[in-house]
């Protein structure tokens, strides 16, 4: 693993390095090639698509976007606005209140502290699907179907984000700072908002991105709650492309619609990748 000289057994370092580059190139291609084909096909017309695949983009991208996305049978633009709204609100509420929860556990000493921190850790991994049935009934009784509230408000209680914030606070938030604020006469709530929140900015940024993305990609719960076309989020509209009679579609339009929902995330990711790739090592349920 560490510095290896030519006298030791095994492959020489140059060969190992070459193998590493080849494998890395292969897995990188495996990751990107689908999006490349998607992009190419989104630029081709119906006729060109039936003639088989070519690796060179064509000229019909705007046409496909216009007929398949902006003036298509499905309200994709509205869907994107809905998704933006839900994901944006979730990310804001989730990070603000998770920081607040972490602050409560980190800074104060109270009777139920131990119990609460253990409880939140213990329920961290329980998936939302197993309570979906009761959740759905509750939403029905509260008359909140076809409403964004049941998709946004639950983000306030996010154990995984809490866990990340707590870890971050332990390494960066000295209790003496809060003491100092108290001596200067700052109220507890004000200390939290104007001193702690700015200090937590890097952690908040990372978690805001993750919460935004997972809400943006969420399909299971929104599909159970949103039924009106104008309320649907992007994943539901994409799923409807699949369930509609597939063959009657102009495939160029289908590719344009998929590209429309995938590429914005890719662009944002490439801009923010520095924060995202570094921020992944804590918490999170995997697939």
């Amino acid at each position, binding site marked *: *693993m*560490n510095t290896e000289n030519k006298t030791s057994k095994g492959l020489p370092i140059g060969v190992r390095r070459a193998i590493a580059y080849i494998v890395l190139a292969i897995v990188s291609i495996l990751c990107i090639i689908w999006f490349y084909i998607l992009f190419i096909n989104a630029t081709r017309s119906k006729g060109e698509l039936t003639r088989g695949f070519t690796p060179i983009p064509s000229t019909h991208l705007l046409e496909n976007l216009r007929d398949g996305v902006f003036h298509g049978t499905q309200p994709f633009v509205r869907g994107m606005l809905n998704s933006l709204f839900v994901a944006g609100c979730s990310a804001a509420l989730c990070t603000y209140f998770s920081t*607040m929860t972490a602050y409560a556990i980190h800074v104060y000493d109270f009777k139920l502290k131990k119990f609460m921190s253990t409880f939140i850790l213990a329920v961290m991994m*329980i998936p939302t699907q197993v309570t979906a049935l009761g959740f759905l009934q509750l939403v029905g009784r509260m008359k909140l179907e076809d409403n964004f509230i049941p998709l946004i408000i639950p983000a306030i209680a996010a154990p995984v984000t809490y866990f990340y914030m707590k870890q971050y606070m332990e390494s960066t938030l000295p209790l003496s700072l809060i003491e100092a604020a108290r001596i200067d006469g700052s109220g507890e709530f004000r200390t939290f908002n104007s001193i702690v929140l700015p200090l937590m900015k890097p952690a908040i940024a990372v978690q805001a991105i993750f919460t935004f993305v997972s809400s943006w990609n969420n399909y299971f719960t929104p599909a159970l709650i949103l039924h009106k076309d104008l309320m649907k989020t992007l994943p539901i509209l994409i799923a409807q492309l699949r369930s509609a009679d597939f063959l009657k579609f102009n495939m160029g339009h289908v590719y344009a619609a998929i590209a429309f929902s995938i590429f914005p995330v890719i662009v944002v990711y490439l801009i923010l990748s520095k924060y995202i790739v570094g921020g992944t090592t804590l918490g999170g349920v995997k697939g």
Partner: protein
Amino acid sequence: MEKAKRGKVVSYNKWGYFFLIPFVVVYAIFQLIPLVSTIYNSFFENYRSGLTQVGPNFIGLKNYMTLFTNGDLLSYTRNTMIMWILGFVPQILVSLLLGAWFSDPSLRLKFQRFFKTVIYLPNLIMASAFSMLFFTLFADSGPINSILISLGIFSAPYKFMSHVWSVRGLVALMNFIMWFGNTTILLMAGMMGIDPSLYEAAQVDGATATQIFYRITLPLLRPILLYVMITSLIGGLQMFDVPQILTNGTGDPVRSSMTLIMYLNKHLFSKNFGLGGALSVLLFIITGIFSLIVFKLNTSTEK
């Protein structure tokens, strides 16, 4: 003065409760109440058959009996596990390899940032859109078939969606692509945490890179490997978006790619709350056990 200050200290700590209110209230309303009513529902016969509503009638554990005896649960658990394993085994192998390379200072790999960015990318893609994309790419008249035919590998389009193992394979492939970057970064962080003097000592004793990997890296990585495996298993049990959209919710061919959550989703849509409730409770117990293991791992590594 002293007395006043002590009084203040006590009142400061009360703020802990105030700051916890949002979390506790929201968690109670949107998680605990639904959990209780899900469990409650599992003891009732409550479904719709055509236009007539049956129940709710209390039937005790009968929903659980039905689940266990009609065979669906077993076969859908099998499907879920098969697809998870098909995706997880290559995922952990590739991640270990890449993690070892990334964290190996003697290799001095260039463009690390670039590679990490690329392999992590699929993790953020909307699973439903990714699945829809695969469906169109692997359709009978899609580009993959057209490429395979033009390369002379097949003479006629291969019907990916009509064969049991090709559908399962595609689901596993998508899960693999979406998650190996994430796992690589987790494992790499673990490998960076290993004391470098151990490697130096092994080097002095003349160990090769392979020996060092198997004798030092792997054993020391065991807690993280276990964490990765169990969290991935919990995620695997939740497998839904990818197979749901790839197969249009049917899990075809012959429901061989129907997962547990797809089964639950079917009950939720048809408003069969009795069976759906029983299935939810079972999933809750299973994931609860796995969660406890993760919890134990987290609290033991924290010290």
